[in-house]
């Protein structure tokens, strides 16, 4: 059974309505109430203040329109969590292969672009009659 001192604390904090008491303590508080005139006096005292608080003016009706709120809110972008890199380890061999393949691809592309530009330049030079230092234009 609850001690009277704890019952007093409940009344002082939560008031006299059992619906507001911590659920885990309601049964033991009710048990004390049934047996203790002091507890009943404490409850009556707390209930007096509750009656005044219950006369607080009602809130003005909210003007927020739920549907408009939903529409506006869900139009915003959501924050996607960052993909965690720590702890996500790829096998080293596979990683090296990928990097080598990328470098090779870049080299091939560079060669093709350079060769194409060289061909275009040669044709233009031939057409215009001027000469070029091909070695200087080969930047790859």
């Amino acid at each position: 059974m609850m001690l009277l001192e704890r019952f007093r604390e409940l009344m002082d904090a939560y008031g006299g309505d059992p619906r507001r008491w911590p659920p885990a303590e309601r049964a033991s508080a009710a048990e004390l109430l049934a047996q203790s005139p002091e507890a009943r006096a404490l409850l009556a005292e707390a209930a007096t203040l509750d009656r005044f608080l219950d006369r607080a003016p009602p809130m003005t009706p909210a003007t927020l329109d739920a549907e408009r709120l939903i529409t506006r809110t869900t139009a915003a972008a959501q924050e996607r969590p960052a993909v965690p890199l720590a702890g996500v380890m790829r096998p080293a061999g596979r990683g090296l292969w990928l990097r080598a393949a990328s470098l090779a691809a870049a080299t091939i592309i560079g060669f093709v672009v350079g060769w194409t530009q060289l061909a275009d330049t040669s044709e233009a030079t031939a057409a215009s009659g001027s000469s070029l230092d091909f070695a200087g234009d080969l930047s790859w």
Partner: protein
Amino acid sequence: MQDESDDALMRRAGSGDKAAFAVLVRRHLARATAVAQRIVANRSDAEEIVQETFLRCWQKAPEWLPANDRDAGDAAGRAQIGTWLYRVLVNLCLDRRRRPRPVEIEAAAEVADERANGFDVRAASETSRRVAAAMAALPDRQRAALALCYFEELGNIEAAAALAISVGALESLLVRGRRALKESLADLAPAGHIG
């Protein structure tokens, strides 16, 4: 979907499910608005705060991970997102209250439109106005504790989590708040004594 737990709805919302998020909003909007109104005592501020709260809820939904087991029942799921929602709401309310407001503007606004405070004082008796005034005079965190526990009847664990304090600290706020109200309203009791 209407019967799904808050946790389940939040997980769906995290995948961009607007319909799931809409259910969450409709489920919590009225109470969130009431809590905000009681804390900031200003209806337009309260509504701005509620909108900001739900916006953050939507934006953060992809990161939502419940602290408890994903297979936990509806009650646990509801407590989790509700706690998070009210923590954001209460923090925004307390931050708003900390903003310096020009006294002359605030006083003029209050005289001009009492309804802006959030209370429908046109329908209130003198006693009701005194109670509203006594609540408004409380320190913000005491008023927030009473708003959550007394007026909106959140459980003590959920209310404490919303305020990011222990249940013991919550009870301390409630005790001090009720004591201050008792002193403020003492003259209204028939024998000059209020419980």
